[in-house]
Structure formats: structure tokens, C-alpha cells
């Protein structure tokens, strides 16, 4: 930009109107197609059932025990010890 020069002629010279209309049309077209695709997606899914089933079986490594699992194990162990000692006392 050199000097400030306010004029409608600038828009005409820069092909502004056709640029703006073309840009808006392309944006609307792209998002309309995406919108249509999203609307059709539930109908497409049954076709893809064999490739991408809803129940996805994950073949990755199994989940490792978390640190706080030891607290659960301790509680189970304590319950078993208590149960066995009660059995011994009764029997």
C-alpha cells in the first residue's frame, strides 16, 4: 500500500466483487458437502460394518496393573486371612 486512496474504483480494479463472491461460494460449497456427508454418515455406516465394526477389538498390549491396585489386593488378602481365621476358630 502506497498512499491512502479511498475509491470504489480500487474494488473494481482488484476484481474484488468476483473474488468475494467466488470465495463465499467455495466456502459454502465445501461446508455444504461436509454437512451432507455428515447427514448421510449414519446410512453409510452399515455398509462399512465389515471393515470398521462398532465393537472394536483392540489387539494392543494388555493394560498393566496400576499402582493403587496393590491397595485392592491388600484388602482382598486381608479379607481372606480374616475369613480363614474365623473358619479355624469355628471349626
Amino acid at each position: 500500500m502506497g498512499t491512502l486512496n479511498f475509491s470504489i474504483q480500487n474494488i473494481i480494479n482488484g476484481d474484488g466483487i468476483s473474488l468475494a463472491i467466488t470465495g463465499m461460494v467455495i466456502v459454502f460449497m465445501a461446508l455444504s458437502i461436509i454437512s451432507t456427508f455428515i447427514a448421510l454418515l449414519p446410512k453409510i455406516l452399515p455398509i462399512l460394518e465389515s471393515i470398521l465394526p462398532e465393537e472394536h477389538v483392540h489387539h494392543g498390549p494388555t493394560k498393566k496393573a496400576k499402582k493403587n491396585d496393590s491397595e485392592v489386593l491388600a484388602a482382598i488378602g486381608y479379607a481372606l486371612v480374616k475369613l480363614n481365621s474365623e473358619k479355624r476358630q469355628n471349626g
Partner: protein
Amino acid sequence: MHIFNNFLSSTAFANMTFGNALMIAIGIIFITLAIRKDYEPLLLVPIGFGVVVGNIPPVEGMLLSVYDQGSVLSIIYGGVSQGLFPPLIFLGIGAMTDFSTMLSNPKLVLLGAAAQIGIFLTLLGALYLGFDPAEAGAIGIIGGADGPTAIFLSAKLAPHLLGSIAIAAYSYMALVPVIQPPIMKLLTTKEERLIRMKAPRHVSQREKIIFPIAAFLIAALIAPGAIVLIGMLFFGNLLKESCVTERLANTARNAMIDIVTILLGFSVGASTQAQTFLTPQALLIFGLGALSFSVATAGGVIFAKFMNLFLKDKINPLVGAAGVSAVPDSARVVQMVGQQEDPHNFLLMHAMAPNVAGVLGSAIAAGVLWSVLVV
């Protein structure tokens, strides 16, 4: 005395201009707004401090500023000027965006397209004011209300205006809660603001996985210029939704986006040296930026009212305002304005649909402008 004079001439005081002092004050105002008012603090603190750093006058013979080839700041700024940072931010945004609301109500996508009118009307305004077409395209993208997109396009089309455009885009994004509500209220009736929308349907994981791949193909084939931004956005989203790359998605949406935001914000701020920033053109860019946000907001609201003429299940026209990207601030504004009329009306989830569609729309618009206007 002679030694003291020599020392004084080697300090930044000697070259300090009124413009530098003014810019330092603006930087401090940004930081204050971020800390006191909580206006986009993740952006305004790095940008504000960058403005302060960038306006310490350079000392002769020392490579310090963003514009000194080989300086540390110029190397960081390379990520902005070469268009590296914006796509990385899009990757992080993709990894944190949930497209469920959009997938459950696809007609709301059109509101994200309608709001892009702000970009193209501002382009006409910029041409009218005497900017050349490439500069006008870069200024127009401010109306997309998407900082990374604005930076990406202005780095390609008008690098000399990058500082002004980036500061204008981020300033107005921070001011979304101030700019949008009056326009939304002006263009809607009380009855319209009270409309309650149907709850969104459940979206399956399969839909969420297929969507980023299919939507990328559609957008990229129509507007190849948008490949970089849209590609990174949907790649990030696929990392999130695939459920098998959780570590990558976590890095993209946390550590990586934070690092890039710090570097981008700081270096954009540091590029606003008074000598290059305080120009009549910068004032015009700020004026056009305000206009573009207002037009984009109005475009979304008016188009929602237009759609209601044909729909059985009416849309609350306020959600149209979220079509300007500014994720998630404009969706929050919709929720806030809606609840002023009816405290039990929850519009946030509905507003997120045009909000993320607006991100797509502005990236596609940027791709179109880049491919048409690049010299």
C-alpha cells in the same frame, strides 16, 4: 563526563522514541487486561511481553531484534514468517476438539459458512481503502476470528502487515464478549432468543473416526490451499478419536500447543516495533478488524433466522454468532446471552457446532484467498 556520555549513547534510552514508549505502554495494557480481566491470558501475556521486548530500541552493532538476520528473536520469528507455527497450533486444536455436536446436527455447519461473509466483505472494504488485493485478503481473514489462520495467510500474502494483522486478530478475539452481544441482541427478538433446541443425538465412535478423514478429503479437494491448516486440524482430531494414539494426542493438545503458543505469541509481539507498526495503515487494519468481527457475527445470526424460515425444528439464532471461529469464546458468549433470557436454556453444546464449523470455514477461505491472490 565523556565516558558517561559514551555510556548513555550505548543504552536504549538514547534511541527511545515516543512510538516505542507508546508500544511498551500498549504491551503493559495487554498484560494487565490478561491478568486483571482474564481476557485471553494465554495469548495476551506472551504477546504483551513480546511487545515490550520488541520495542526496546536496538543498539547499533548488536543483532537483537526480530528484524535483525541471525538474531535469536529472528530465528524464533521464522516460525511465524515461514508459516510453521499456525499449522502446529491447528494440530493441537484438532487433538482437543470434539466434533460430536457438529456430527449430531449437520445443518448447523452452514452457520459456520455464513459467518465467513465477514472475511469477504472486509476484503472489499480493504480494497476500497486502497490496499492491494493481497493485502486486502490478508486483512479480510481477521474476520475469520482465528489467530493462527490470520497469521498463516498474512505471512504468505502480506508479511509486512503480519504484526498489525496478528495483533488486531488476537485483540478482537479477546474482545469477543464485548463485541458480539450487542449485535446478537440487536438482530434477534426476545422470542427468538428463548428458542430451545432439540438435544443432540448420540454420535458413535465410528462416525468420529471416519469424519476427520472424509472431511479432510472433501475440503482439500475443493480448496487445496487449505491442505496445511485443515490437514493438521483433522490429523490432530484423528489422533484423538482413533483411541490408539492417546499419547500423541495428549502431546499435541498439551505440551506442543503450549510451546508453540508461547513462541508464536512472544515473537508476534516482538515484531511490533513502533517504527514498522505505528502507521496509518495499522489504524485502518484495526478499524477493518472491528468491522469484520461485527459483520461475521451478524452474518451468522441473520443466516440462522433465514434457515428458520424452512425448518420445522427451529434454531436459536443466537448460535449463528458462534459461526465466527474464536473457539470456544464465541460459543460461551452465545450461552451467556441465551441464559440472560432463560437461565435454563443451555445453548453451549449447540453453539459448539457452528463454532468448529467456523474454524473449517475460515481455513477454507484462507486456502481460497492464498491460491487466488499469491503472486
